[in-house]
């Protein structure tokens, strides 16, 4: 039974850790947009090809 004297404080410690993590997550805005974030995990994350500043907007100037 004395093992409880070790286990219970560990349990409480885990609880405090869980609560702190949860509060941090909420405060940093991770729960603000549940729909968008929910779908975000389904996105593919291939490495983005970094292009130079695409001047497509300038070339459209000619198309008026």
């Amino acid at each position, binding site marked *: 039974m004395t093992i409880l004297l070790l286990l219970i404080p560990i349990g409480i410690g885990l609880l405090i850790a869980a609560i702190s993590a949860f509060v941090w997550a909420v405060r940093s805005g991770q729960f603000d947009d549940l729909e968008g974030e929910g779908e975000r995990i389904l996105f593919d994350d291939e490495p983005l*090809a970094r292009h130079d500043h695409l001047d497509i*907007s300038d070339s459209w100037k000619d198309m008026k």
Partner: protein
Amino acid sequence: MTLEALADSKSCYHCGLPVPPGFHCTAGVLGEYRLMCCIGCCAVAEMFEAQGLSEWYLRREEAMGSAAPAPSDVRESVEYLESPTLQEEFVECDDSGTASSSLLIEGLSCAACVWVIERHLLALEGVRRARVSLVSRRVKVEWDSQRLTLRDVILRLAEIGFASRPDRPNESLALERDENRSTLIRLGFAGLGAMNVMTYSVALYAGTFDGMSSGAIMLMRWMGLIVSTPVVLVSARPFFIAAWRQLKLRSPGMDIPVSLAIGGAYLVSCYATIGGVGEVYFDSVCMFTFFLSLGRYLEMRIRHRSLSLTRSMMDAKPLIARREGPEGERVIPAHALIVGDHFRVRPGEALPADGIVIDGRSAVEEALLTGEPWPRAIMTGDSVIAGSTNVESPLLVEATRVGSHTTLASIIALVEGAESERPPIALMADRVASIFVTGVLGVAVVNWLTWQALAPDRAIWTTLSVLVATCPCALSLATPTALAAATHALAKAGLVITSGRVLEGLATADRVIFDKTGTLTRGRPTVARIEAMQGRSESEVRRLAERMERDSEHPFAHAFRSEGLALRLVSEVGLDEIQSIPGFGVEGVLDGTRYRIGRPTWVVENDEGLTPPTGPESDVLAWILLANQEGPLAWFGFEDPIRVDASPAIEGLRSRDEKVALEMLSGDPSPSALRIADRLGLEVHISAATPQAKVERVHALQEAGERVVVVGDGVNDGPFLQAGDVSVAMGSGCDLSRLTADAVLMRNELTLIPRAMAWSGRLRRILYQNFAWAIAYNLVVLPLAVTGHLAPWLAALGMSTSSLVVVLNALRLNRLPDAV
């Protein structure tokens, strides 16, 4: 526009709008050439392919619904951002040279758009962070201020077809966000605490059956106390505060028995722990707190969702003003205008303040208040309102009312006030609750007294278990879960509910009254007939007309434009000196010949009794004439077509419930109105009704005891819409009606009305089931508690099971079936 409709080969693959005849532009997307409707969509589709974003076409839930803006239009619209004062206003810059801004995005429909926007922005050199929030429709962008400007970011978004606007930090948005966060924190706290307390409680339960040393019992009890204390103090506080308020006002509500149960159980359990006697109920305390907080959280989400709809409409207010001062024209933020300032408004721009025209002759479109697409001609001395759009020529206006004093602002304030009412279903639940409260308290008191007489040492424990057993957990969860699920299902399908009375009202409706223009019909003129004369071909005159109307903002011009958009690319009929004469038409010169298009009496000045062609049963609203110096060239007839889903919707309503009367009430005096009603099978009791007559009709029906649902777009009919027991506004209707209506058909899908009615019937049944279950549970458990047979483990088990049953039952409302 659903994705199935896209499979029809004549729709643009990108936006779903019809491809104009004669336009052939395809873009290679996902391995095949797909039809496009205009250069805007074409360019965006090619951009997606080039950037590896074509997956968007696979993931999206629906087509864009509106053509992508042409790049030249977007470039012009961001010119104003060059001004440094505006840069300060909208862009925050920190010491490390990182600029950040929040942009409001139009046309953001689903998560696939989120993906496409973020990736496209991040691929731009200099962008450091881009995060889209679907719920607030904003994107937060951070970039290197040395390499990019706000304008670049906005143009980058426009490349993929999303129009965006910089956004000022919104107070109500921040308040909502904080409320969301604090409620969620309390909920999570209660949940985590409850789980932890269960560890100790289950040990105690096991001890009841298998025996446990008194030392171990004491330890478990004390641990339960230590963990429950913060839960009660933090998460249960709102209940105590609300209960106290209700006591002071003497209006009994759910919070009183809830607070009694939680507080009482907690205190008595503390007494039991310290004194080493009786039973402890810490697990019940925490679980109550958790379940009840869950109910509150769901209610809050519903409330916020309807608020966000209001907010999205208010976002349409103009941002900037072009103030005319001694130093010339300066672009300033709209809220910096003061009364007496002179400001200019270019064609196509929205007015930033109420005012009087000082110089200029033009027309303004005041759809946001009246819904009328026809602009009102104005000249010097006329008054104009903030939020309306200047359609024809530049204006110089003196501001008479600015900021929060404009007509627009005062209307919005009215609406926001109405928003905070609680839905009637919740009010009904409260009535049930107050009966319940008195009942429970009565039982508890009687129980206490009885036990005092029989065996006083058991009195407190049995009374405690009575309170625990009857804590209205299930009852409290019954309503918000069902409401949340039903509202969510309908919102996903396209009917956004902003007022609680909708669901109940729809379920018990006796009559549905439809407005005609804009509701049963599209409300926007489309070119229906072309009568070419003098041997010209239809496409030739059409191209001519389109070219002349290209820069006009008049709704007739729009009718040409949406169908002839592509012709910009194809033809270049070189017309010079295009001049728009407000109220009459457009004039231009081609190869030395003068052309005019517009009102017949102005186009051909000598009145030779020109009559437009008539046809059998013509639905044509208006005719305009195209002519040159030699004579008339073509007639263009405009129609207001019936919506495609009007007929299936009426059929759906009729087949669902034959007893519901279906009526059309329109102010249109023309015979085509009656023809439409006939075709759709709607009763017409009053034809050519004035707005006043419409309201009177609704009131008369209500006095006769009927429950009336009104469906309309609010064009000149605000009071008519409001008069109904339930008002459903069309998504394309005027802004004011959308704000004040009980529900909005976001995609103008009339077929949602019968579906929503069926669903509200279902909601009522499920609510009754939930109530019945909650009450039955209490009736079973109460005798056990009174006779002292309700052990803590039994109470906890029973309470969580009953809550779970209620929630699962409510979730059956979560998805609207596809069939009408």
